[in-house]
Structures are given as structure tokens and as C-alpha cells.
């Protein structure tokens, strides 16, 4: 088992209000799964994805990844975990405006202290994989939304992560570009990547192997799609 969440809880506290974003989540995900998380706005999908991606910490419960307990790790250990095991795809692409596409993709490898030659080879391969190589020297603002998202996927896969997390990857794209992105994700899954994707689109959720529905911070349905 790749991921084992047990009684995961996330509370947000302000001066007077306490909000429960996640309530006692139990979730197990195997290696090579493609899981889609659905639910209405504010149900806790993105919070769950952030916790899975260790960019947010649960306020309770246990998160085991490949038999490692992540909730006990400090900030530096989590950063190391992220750069070695995770790849992110965001709804709004989150490419850095001041860097070229090539540099944006390379960024994921720089923090691994990887030699330059290897970095370049991997970046080149990742760009080929998503069909963005011809835009390597362009800046994000010079690309269409679909191209930017493909670049973001290239950045997510360049480090050959154990898990790809995609937060509404087609949310800012038109139908055609959305379909292309989903094709890539499916292909990556077919090649063995574990993917967890948050989406509002039932049709895109149906392309995953498993679908989880959330409501009010809880997993209410978890079903396997017939593919």
C-alpha cells in the first residue's frame, strides 16, 4: 500500500471560530491507482490533497506513505519527501512567470542537487513526453492555457515521483485542452504512475480507476470505475 490515512483531521482556528475542514478521514491508496476526488466547493477536497501533498499538516490522525509516518516529520524532512516522491499539477498551473518553461520544469530537479547534464536530459525527456519541447525557451505568459498545463505536468513528472497530485488540472482549460491533459494523465497512469486528482468534472472523474466523493470534510463514497 502506498498511502494509508487514518483518522485524518484538519481544523482551522481563528480567534472566535473553529472550522473542521476534514473530519476523521480514513483512506488507503495502492501503488499505480488513479483516484479522482469529487465533491462540492468547500467539502475539503483541496485540503485533503494539500495534506496528501504534505504542503499542509493535519491537526490529527496518521498519514503513512510507503510505510513512513509523515505526520512526525519536520519541515525539512517533508521538503525532502516532496522533492523525492511527489509531483504537483495545479488548476492555475502555478508556473513561475520569471522563468522559462524549461527552467520551470528544471526547478523540480534543482532542489535534488542533481547534476546539470542529468537535469537537462530529464527536462528534455519530460517536455517531449507532454509535447511541449518546442516551447522550451518561452515564458509562461507566452503560452496558451493548455500548453501551460502541459508544462506543469512535465514539471510534475520530471522527477519520476511515486505520486502525482493534480488539483483540478482541467479547471482552467477548454474542452479540447482539458481532454488532452486527461489523455496525458491516463497515459502516465498506464505507465505506472499513481495519480490522485481533484476534479469537478464527472466525465474526467470517470476516466480514473477509482472515484471518491466528499461532503462536509468526510469521504462519503468510494467506488471503483469500470474501465
Amino acid at each position, binding site marked *: 500500500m502506498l498511502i494509508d490515512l487514518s483518522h485524518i483531521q484538519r481544523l482551522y482556528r481563528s480567534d472566535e471560530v473553529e472550522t473542521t475542514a476534514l473530519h476523521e478521514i480514513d483512506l488507503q491508496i495502492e501503488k499505480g491507482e488513479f483516484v479522482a476526488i469529487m465533491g462540492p466547493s468547500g467539502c475539503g477536497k483541496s485540503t485533503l490533497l*494539500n495534506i496528501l*501533498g504534505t*504542503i*499542509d499538516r493535519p491537526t490529527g490522525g496518521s498519514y503513512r506513505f510507503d510505510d513512513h509516518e509523515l505526520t512526525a516529520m519536520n*519541515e*525539512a524532512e517533508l*521538503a*525532502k519527501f*516532496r*522533492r*523525492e516522491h*511527489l509531483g*504537483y499539477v*495545479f488548476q*492555475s498551473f*502555478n*508556473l*513561475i*512567470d*520569471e522563468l522559462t518553461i524549461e527552467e520551470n520544469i528544471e*526547478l*523540480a530537479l534543482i*532542489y*535534488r542537487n542533481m547534476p546539470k547534464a542529468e537535469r537537462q536530459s530529464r527536462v528534455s525527456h519530460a517536455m517531449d513526453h507532454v509535447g511541449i519541447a518546442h516551447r522550451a525557451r518561452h*515564458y509562461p*505568459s507566452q503560452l496558451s492555457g493548455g500548453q501551460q498545463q502541459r508544462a506543469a505536468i512535465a*514539471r510534475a513528472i520530471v522527477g519520476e515521483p511515486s505520486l502525482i497530485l493534480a488539483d483540478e488540472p482541467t479547471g482552467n482549460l477548454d474542452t479540447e485542452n482539458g481532454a488532452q491533459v486527461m489523455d496525458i494523465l491516463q497515459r502516465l497512469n498506464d505507465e505506472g504512475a499513481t495519480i490522485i486528482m481533484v476534479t469537478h468534472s464527472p466525465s474526467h472523474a470517470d476516466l480514473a480507476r477509482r472515484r471518491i466523493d466528499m461532503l462536509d470534510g468526510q469521504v462519503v463514497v468510494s467506488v471503483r470505475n469500470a474501465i
Partner: protein
Amino acid sequence: MPLAILRSILRQARRQPLYLALNVIGLGLGMAVCLVLTLQVRYEYSFNATIPDAAHVLRLDSHLIFPGSAPQEYGDVPFIAFPFLHTDFPQVVDATRYEADDYQLHNGDRSVAAGTSLVDTSFFDVIALPLEHGDPRSALSRPDAIVLSAAKAQALFGTTDVIGRTITADHEGHHTRQTVTGVLARAAGPVTIAPDAITPFPSDEMQKPQFTRWGSSSGNIFLRVRNKADRTAIARNLTRFVIDHASGTANDDVSEGVHPERRFALSLVSLRETHFNDLHVVAGDDATDRSVVNILALIGALALLLAVLNAINLATARSGLRAREVAIRKTLGATRKTLFVQFVGEAIASTAIGGALALALCEIALPFTAALTGTTLHMDYGFTLPFLLAVVLLTGLACGIYPALILSSHQPAHVLAATRMPSDGRGATHLRNGLVIVQFAFAVAFAICTLVVNRQAHFMQSQDLGFARDGILISSDIMTSDIGKQRAILEALRHTLGVVSASLSELTPNIDNRHRFNVTPVGPHHEDIHVLGDTVVGDYATTYRPRMLAGRWFDNSHGEDDSPGDEAFHKSSGKTWNVVLNRTAISRLGFASPESAIGTPLKSGPVTLRVIGVMEDMRFVSARDDVSPQITFNSTAALDYPHASVRFSGVPENIMKTRLKSAWDPVFPNDPTGFGTVQDRMSTFYITEQRRGWMFSIASGIAIFIACLGLYGLASFTALQRTHEVGIRKALGATTNNVLTLMLGDFLRPVLLACAMAALPALFVARSWLSGFHQRIALSWLDFAAVVLVTLLIAALTVLGQTLRLARAEPARALRAE
């Protein structure tokens, strides 16, 4: 519109007080520095401007060309030239001689020391110093007339309305009754001619030998001409004037020899120029280096420029924050022009607040600046307010136009559709970095130059003077050539408790222009060199401890060690007298080493001098000037212009001074003196550099502070803009340290680049400034490294808070940042 601008400023003060404070403080400081330095520069350039028609009042300067030395300009000229000026130059409207002397003035039991100018009766026709009381046309017409300064009149009588009152003037023990015929008005601006008292020359004064020879430096001669052309005409004919009137035979006592033009020249300098001209003029006015004043003006302008760059940087950095406001305003019907005017108006309004701050800072800083620079600088609102108004307007426009263009150009559809603050692109980022580079480059260049100026000032105070400077006290001039009195004071000082040794000498620190004469090494093919002569009496070697390089000091057991006095010396044809030379003399005379000069005979006219010792150069002059070749005599006769020097030990300095005064007063009851240390006497040489160092330190400190304000502001807004980026980086595995290093590097890179850009110009400026000193520090790369390190450290501390906050941001929260 003005109301809308005011509302916007108030809203900024409420919602973004940091931005407004950074902006206003930066502008206020920049304008304050600019204002203070403008007033300082205006002060320096306005010397003698209040004297009517000062540009056409000319001082006749002399230039002496000594063999083996560079020509030297003197503010003093021989008065023997005076009568010929009227006859030779019809362009001269009026002329006066002017000799400064020290008097003691008494009115009953009130007594004051007064720097008194002896002048011709035409003085006020030439230099029309305004009178508070009295008539300038008749003020000097009677022989017993005296015109007092307002301050001295007040000190003597308690009032300035004292026309017709009498006082007693005491000059070197000679008392005269004088009638007050005028009181000078207090000068409305800085002047170089500000005597405490003015009196006509006594009728027998011009018969004195020093006024009847071309070779003497009698005092100043001032001429009034009608216009510039007259000045040019006179200047063109001054060489002919010298040839016509200063020629004589080779050995006569009056002339400058057969070819006077080879050793003597005259030139003209107007009263409006003396303050800058006299930097290297002996017996000139208290002068200032014009290039330094110009540098101050440049610093003032640059400080303002830094503040403007700061404001532009802050405004453009924050333009993204106001994009939504612009979009909404445009949606509601505002045109780009309306918004442009509004934003420029806001910039002018912020600058006006900065201007008010600058005025307040200037009021506070001006008394300190005046004390620091030793000037009478004060706030002149007649000049300051219009100047400040113009500065505010221009600065406001300079600060406002570019950011207003950027701000007013935001497209509403694009801005309102975006979830995040619109990035203003790589061009704007480069511009902001460029502005930070320019700001820091100026600040670092200031700082390097400041360090060099301060090091040179410190060096001038602590440099090796060639003698043991500590523990010496020196009297003022001994006003008598009576050998009995001279011996009496020497004995009195010697027997004072705490005195180790005492001596009399003609040269002392800051007195270096007494006797000069030519000497020639005996033998063929040797040329004259012009040397400075000193004559010493008593335990000079113990008092000054000159460092001997070869031979010996004077010794009572050698009969030829004691030369006669000046007059007898020139008549002692065929005699040989022992002398000690300094290192420069040895070098100019062409000796291979100090040792090789020992025992060598030199000729000075008919007299033979034998070198018995060579001492290290004793520096009694400023580090700006070269040490003269010098020959020292030991004498049994009276000295012409002696000073007493004592070495003391085991007694605090102030107590020693009191004891010396007690020993002095019985011998010279009418010539009160004060004893001063070597440091006291030589402080005039480095005080300007020291004050300049202080000024530069403050200015460069403010420059760095303004630059840091800019950097801080930039860091604040960059932190806002890059929070999202930090979220992305952290999601990709960056640690806090990774982000911290990246952000610090990004902030400090332009600073480092600025340091590199500043180094070369700073090196050039520092080198050219130092070249004005004969004795100077060596420039070291450590100066540059120290400034760069300190600047980087200050810059790092400036952005550290913002950078740490940014680096520690939680990734999920950072990713949500707009």
C-alpha cells in the same frame, strides 16, 4: 481633483502606512540633505558677495620663484609697489594697502584683543564695508581714527553708538589714544575681510625697512577697477611693471636683482574669488577647496536623485496592488488622462509632505552643520522657501510621471478577470533592480570616498612629523627682539616646575615662512637652492627631539656652532658657521646620503656653512604642502621672530599651561600669551578635512539609509508578490533555507553589482582628491572591501525580516496568496 488626491493620500496613510512612511521619509531625507548642502554650497559661493562691487576689487598677489622649488603664491606683496600702481595703471580707480596686526584695545578697565587692519585713508573707497555708525568718506581721514567692528564696540562700550569716543590702542607695548570714527555693520553674509578694527597707517610706518624693499612681504594691496576689461589690461602688464620697478643690481638690498621677472611675479585675484583661490596661497584668506564644494553640491543633487529613485521604485513595485482600483475606476468611466493626473498629483502631494519634513529636518540640522563646518550658516527663508517649492514640484513630477504612466495603463478586463495581482513583467523587475543598483552605487561610492577622507584626516593628525610631538607646549610670538628679554623668558620657562627643557626658535608648527635664502654647495657646476632658515636657542634638541640621520646636533663645546644673529650673519664675510640640514635639503643639494653631507661646506653669499648634522624633515606645514629644504643655525644672538617651546613631563597639560603663563606674565606683562600644543597649532591643517569627513560621513550614511529604505520597500512588496512563487517552490521540495538563500541572493545581487559599479568611480575621485596632498594615505583594496562588506551586511539586515517571513511561509497558505 485636489480633494480626490487628498482622500487618496489619507486612505494610503490608513491602509498602507508603511508605504507612505517609506516614501515620505525617503523624500524628506533626500530633500533635507539637498537643502542643507545647497545652503552650504550657496554659503561657500557667496563669500564677499555682500561687499559692494567685490568682483571689481582686486588683490595683488605675489609669486616667488625659488631655485629648486615650485613657485609659491603669496597674498602679501611688498608695499614698495603701491605708489607705482596709480601711475602705471590708469585703470586703477582707487587702491589701499592693508596690513593685519594684533592690537589690545582698552576703554578704562574694559580690554579686548582686536585683529586690527592698518590701511590707507582710501580703504572704504576700495572695499566699501558698510558702516553701522559713521561716514565711510571721512572715517579714516584723521590720523587717530579707528573704526571698530560692532562686536568690539559692544565689548568695549556696551553699545555700538560710540562715534567720537576714545580708546587706548596697545601695539607691542606702544600705546596711542584713538578716536572711534566708525562702527562696522555686522556682515550680512560670509566675508574674508572682517577686521575687529581698522585704523590708518601711522605716518612713519612706511619708513620701516620691510616696506621699502621688493623682497619683503609687507601686507595686502587692494585695487578697485571699473570692469573686467580693466582687470585684464592690468594683468597683461604686470610683468612689465615688475621689470620697470623691481630691477636693480645683483646685490642691492632693495630690488629683485637684474632680472626680477625670473624670481618675482604679480597677479590679481578678485575679492569674489579669494575664498576658493587661496587654498595654496601663503598669507591668503581662510580658503576652501572649490572642488570639494562642488562635490558637496553633487552629493546634494544625488541625495535627491536617490530619494526620487526610491519613490519611483516603491510606486512601480506597488502598481500591481493598485491595479484593481485602476480597473474599477476605468470601468466606472475614468479616462487614462484623469488617472494619470490623479497619480501625478498624489506623487506631488507625497513629495510636499516630504518637503515639510525636509524643512523641519533642515532647521534641526543647520545649527549642527554650521558647528561642524565652522561656518555661520543659517536658514535664509527668502531663499529656502522658493527653492524648496521648486524642488518639491520637480521632485513630485520626477517621482510621479513614470509610475503614473504604468498605473494608468492597466486594462480593466484583464485585471478584473485575473485571480492574482497582475505581474508588471520582467521589464519592470529589471527596472526596479536597476534603480536599486543606481541607488546603492551612489551610496557605496559616497561611502568609499568618505572612508578615504576620514582616513586621510586621521592620518594628517597622527602622521610622523619628524619630531616627538607629544609633551610640547609652544608660546605665541615673542614681540621683542631684545636679547635680554628673550633670555629672561627662556630662563623663566626653564625653571618652571615640570619643564624638562625649553628653547627659542623662529620656526614652529604652523609657522614656516620666516627667512629664506640661497645656498650653493662649494665646487663647480652647482646651482643655488633656496632654503628656509631657522635659528634656535637653548635645549631645542631635547624639546623637539628631531631625529638625526647623520652627524650631530649643536653642542656648546664647539665654538663655530653658535652663529651670530641675522644682521651680523650677512656681515660675517669669510667666517664659517656650523649648520644642521634637513633631509629635503640634502636631497635638493644632490648629496647621495645624509652621511656624505657631513663636513661639506656650503656657500651663502660671502659666508661659508659647514654641515655638522642631518635631521629628518620636521613637518611644521600641512600635509598638502611640501616640506622646504631647511638649514638650522644655533645662535647666541637675539632672534627676529622667536617662539618659546617647552617639553614638560609629570604635570597635566592644563596645569602646565597655567604655570607657564605665570612664568611668562612677569617678563611680558603687556603681551599676554597662551601656550598651545603641537596638535592645537596644527589643527588648522586638518580641521577642514576632519569637518569634511564628518559631512561626508553624514551624507553617505543618509544615502545608504535612503537606499536601504528603497530596498526595504522593495523587499516588502516583493515579499507580497513572490509569496505564491514561494508556495510553488516549496511544493516542489524547496526547504526554508533554499528559499531564504534564493531571496537573499535576489535582493543582494543588485547591491553587489552596485558595489562593483561604484568601485571604479570612487577610486578615481579618491585618487584625484588625495593627489592634492604631499603626504597622503595609500589607497587599499581593504577600503573597498570594508565598505562592500558593511553595505552588504546592512542590506542583508534590511531585507532579512521580510525574507525570513517569506521563506517560512506555509506552502498551502502561500499557494492561496493572491
